[in-house]
Structures are given as structure tokens and as C-alpha cells.
């Protein structure tokens, strides 16, 4: 791939000097694409995003092996501000709206590094927010908070947008809407997106490429289209199996997982 924006080469991440969470993760993200990173709770998806954005640093996390190359430069263990300034913006899990600040003030923080106060661009994608611009962030619905989190990240002029479970806790309708907008943002704003999700079905619909992570390792990767057809993915992550008894499924899951891990 000539047009690589980001490359993780066999990275290892350790928290607090001894908790090993990522055990050799490699990924590639092409400029302009949407790549999704799937996997169960605790797999290390959030840690992967934070090691790219630098947000592992304040949590006493460190990339201890391997390299992260962004736009041709090595960036592992850099300060989060520096990464943000170069266009790596993470939308954290759980939305993390500034609850005491109004919607517009939240957006203003988004414009902190870019100086880009084009709030209308955000309202264009998320018209709901415009009506609520003077409301405190804490009073928004979950869906609106997710929109605000994405909107304020957009104002920071991201080249690489890291989205951590934007569907978490939202109604299916709202999730659909937000995913459509993510796709539009990718196309219209020229933003490359790394999307972490548990909702594999929707994520694989908008993504070009997918990685599946378990227990700190990538266990499978491929074109989104291929992953969507893959039997294991359909069963474990898309809940599309017609298989009957749960115990059987559990047994099989165990077997398949083992196969992936070896």
C-alpha cells in the first residue's frame, strides 16, 4: 500500500510497567479509508486507539515494543497534544462530553487547536445540535452526546479520526443515523477513520477493511466484504447463527477461538 496513513508494527503495550495488554499488534490503514477494529470486551481495542492517540500516557501506559508510523513518522509514546495537533483525534468511549459546558462551548474546545470555528459545518451534519446549542452537554440524550463528541472532534481538523464504540448504549435507529453520518464524514471531509465497535454488523457495512482482536492480538483481518461473509465472524460477532443450543455454541466458540489463536 503506497498510501498508508497509519501503520502499527507488532506493538506491545504495557500499563503500570507490568500489565501487558497488547501482545504484538500489527495494522495498516490506508488514507481515506474506514477501517474497523472488532472484538469482545477487554480485547484491547481501546488500548489500541489510545496508543495511537497518545492517551495511554496519562494512564501510565507505554508502547514497549514495535513502532507506530503515522504519515511516515514514528509517533509511539508521543504526547496526546502533539498527536492531536498533527491530526490524530480520538473520540473516547462513553462520549465524554463536557457536561458543565454548553453544546457550543463543547464545540469551542474542539476548535482549540485548529482555530476552526465553523460550527455550521457540524450543525450541517447534526442539525439536532443546532437547536440545542445553548443547552448544557449533560442534558443531551445519549445519541446527541455522541453527535456532539464527533462534531467537536471534526472541528479539530482530524486527518485520522479514532472512534471508540460510538454505538454504545444507543437505540438502533440512532446508531444507524450516526453510522450513516460517519460514512458521509469520511467521504466529504477527507477523514480517514478507525472505528472500534462491538456492533460488527453495522461496522462492517460502512468499513472498507476490518481487524478482529482478541486478548491483545489480531486474530483475523480482511476486506470488510470478506469478513461479512465469514462464518466465524457471522457467528461470534454478528449474532447471525441459526445454531440452536447455547452450550453447543459455547463449545464451538471455544474451539474456534483456539484455532484463531494458534
Amino acid at each position: 500500500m503506497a498510501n498508508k496513513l497509519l501503520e502499527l508494527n507488532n506493538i506491545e503495550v504495557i500499563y503500570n510497567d507490568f500489565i501487558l495488554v497488547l501482545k504484538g499488534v500489527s495494522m495498516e490503514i490506508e488514507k481515506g479509508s474506514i477501517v474497523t477494529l472488532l472484538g469482545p470486551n477487554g480485547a484491547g481495542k481501546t488500548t489500541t486507539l489510545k496508543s495511537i492517540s497518545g492517551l495511554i500516557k496519562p494512564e501510565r501506559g507505554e508502547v514497549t515494543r514495535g513502532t507506530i508510523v503515522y504519515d511516515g513518522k514514528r509517533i509511539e509514546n508521543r504526547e496526546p497534544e502533539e498527536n492531536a495537533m498533527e491530526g490524530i483525534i480520538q473520540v473516547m468511549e462513553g462520549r465524554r462530553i463536557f457536561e458543565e459546558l454548553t453544546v457550543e462551548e463543547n464545540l469551542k474546545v474542539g476548535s482549540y487547536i485548529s482555530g476552526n470555528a465553523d460550527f455550521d459545518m457540524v450543525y450541517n451534519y447534526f442539525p439536532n445540535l443546532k437547536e440545542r446549542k445553548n443547552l448544557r452537554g449533560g442534558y443531551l440524550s445519549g445519541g446527541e452526546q455522541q453527535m456532539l463528541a464527533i462534531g467537536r472532534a471534526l472541528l479539530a481538523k482530524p486527518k485520522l479520526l479514532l472512534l471508540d464504540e460510538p454505538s454504545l448504549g444507543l437505540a438502533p435507529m440512532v446508531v444507524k443515523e450516526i453510522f450513516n453520518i460517519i460514512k458521509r464524514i469520511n467521504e466529504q471531509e477527507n477523514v480517514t477513520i478507525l472505528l472500534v465497535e462491538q456492533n460488527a454488523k453495522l461496522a462492517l457495512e460502512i468499513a472498507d477493511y476490518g481487524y478482529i482482536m482478541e486478548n491483545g492480538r489480531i486474530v483475523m483481518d480482511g476486506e470488510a466484504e470478506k469478513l461479512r461473509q465469514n462464518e466465524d465472524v457471522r457467528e461470534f460477532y454478528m449474532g447471525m447463527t441459526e445454531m440452536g443450543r447455547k452450550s453447543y455454541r459455547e463449545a464451538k466458540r471455544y474451539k474456534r477461538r483456539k484455532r484463531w489463536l494458534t
Partner: protein
Amino acid sequence: MLLQSLINGVTMGGIYALIALGFVLIYKASKVLNFAQGELVMVGGFICLALSEFLPLWASIVLAVILSALLGFLIEKAVLKPLIGEPILSVIMVTLGLAYMMRGLVLAIWGPDIRAFPQLFPPGAFNIYGIVIPYVYLGGLLLSIAAIAIFILFFTRTTMGVAMRAVADDQSAAMSLGVSVEKVFAISWAISAMVAAVGGILVGNIYGGINVNFAFIGLKVFAVVILGGLDSIPGAIVGGIVIGVAEALGGTYLEPYVGGGFKDVFPLLLMLVIMAIKPYGLFGTERIERV
């Protein structure tokens, strides 16, 4: 008589509020309880006093405020920053240590005697329907209102100010948008020392003279923030005025009966009573660890 002490009280209260805003700002941004806020008031006052010996008063005021900002900035960089992540008690001990150092320094340079403070306002008083308001009070009131207004505008209108509130709200989320938390901490100390210096200059004008005991104004400021809630800006403003008025009324109406000095004790008594009813202050929202 009543109206007059009310006006005096509101004036002092406005200044207390201003100084307390600095304390609240540091607490909100970095959860550090700055026990040296009163000393910053004192140092700001003395810097102005020293500069006025060879500069015009207005220039010494401006310069004193700027130098105080620098001092606050340096204190954060040199003393507080290395302590990020340390237990709250060690950080408190360090701010107490800073307080003693500043007092020692002022004592070493200027000695214990009271020094006349350069007067910004003309002597005399404004007389309206028999209510006499000394110009120094009127001026102090107007300037403290102006300073509080600038403070509030900064935190609601400017991107830097809003980003600082964002850090107070959710540090990691602010970092994810490129806000430098280190910078925010340092700027909160700078601003806090600035408002302390403005407060010091205004109170210096009202007192007429200052010595090292000027730092005890910090006690009133603690009363204000405990009353208003450590993390509340409206709380600091309301608390400041309540304490200022209580002090003035206590001085006018109660001191003749219970003896001198009651003026200084009354606000603390009032604070204790209110604390018994509202343990987190009038406006404090969070559960705050009591020290």
C-alpha cells in the same frame, strides 16, 4: 449607618470574592487546595508598593499584576508540576510551605512594620443623601466588579477560558482534543496570582498600610470558599459578599458589645453555622474530601 456598613461590606466582599475566584480556579482545574492564596495577595500588594517608589502608581499596578502572573506561573512549573499525581496531603503541605516562604521573604525584605500603601483614589468621600461612601470604597467596589466581569468573560467567551473549564470537567477528553493540561494548570496559577494581586492592591488602598500580616486575608478567603463551595464560581461571589457584609455588620453592631476583634471572628462563626446546615457549601456540587 446600616446602609453605610452594608456598602463597606459589599465592597470588601467583592474583593474577597475576586481573590476567592483565584482559589476556586486552581481547585477546579487541578484539584489543588492552594493554602498560599492569602500570601499571593500580600506579595502582590508588596510588589506594587515597592514599584511605586520609583514608578508612577498606575504603572506599578500594571507591572505588579503582570509580575504576579509570572510568579504564579513559575510556582506551578517549579513546585506543583513535579507533584502531579502525588497524594492530596503532600500537595497541601507544599502550598503551606510556599505560604511560609512568601511570608518569610516579605518579612526579610520589608520587616514587620506597617508601610503606607500608595493611594490610588482621592481622599474624601462621595456624599449622597447623607450616606457617606469614601472614594476608596467606591473605587474598590467598581474595580472589583470590573475584575470579576473580566474573569467571567474570559472563562465564557475565549477559547482558552472555555478549554480551561473543559479540563476541569474531563481532563482526558480535553487532552483528546489537543488541550495541553500542563499549560492549563500553569495558566490557572497565573490568573489566580493575578486576581490575588488586584485584590491586594485594592485592600491595600482601603487599609492604607500593609505589613506581613496582610496575608491573613487568606483566612477570610477560606471562609468564602468553604461557604460558597470549593468548586463553585457563583459560590465564591455570593460567599465573598456574605462574608464581607457579615464582617462589616459584625464590626458596626456587635463589636461594641462583645469587644474588639469580633469583626474578624464573626464571618468565621457564620461560616461554621452555615457549614453545619450545608456541609458542601452553599453552591458546592461535588462531594469533596474534607481536609
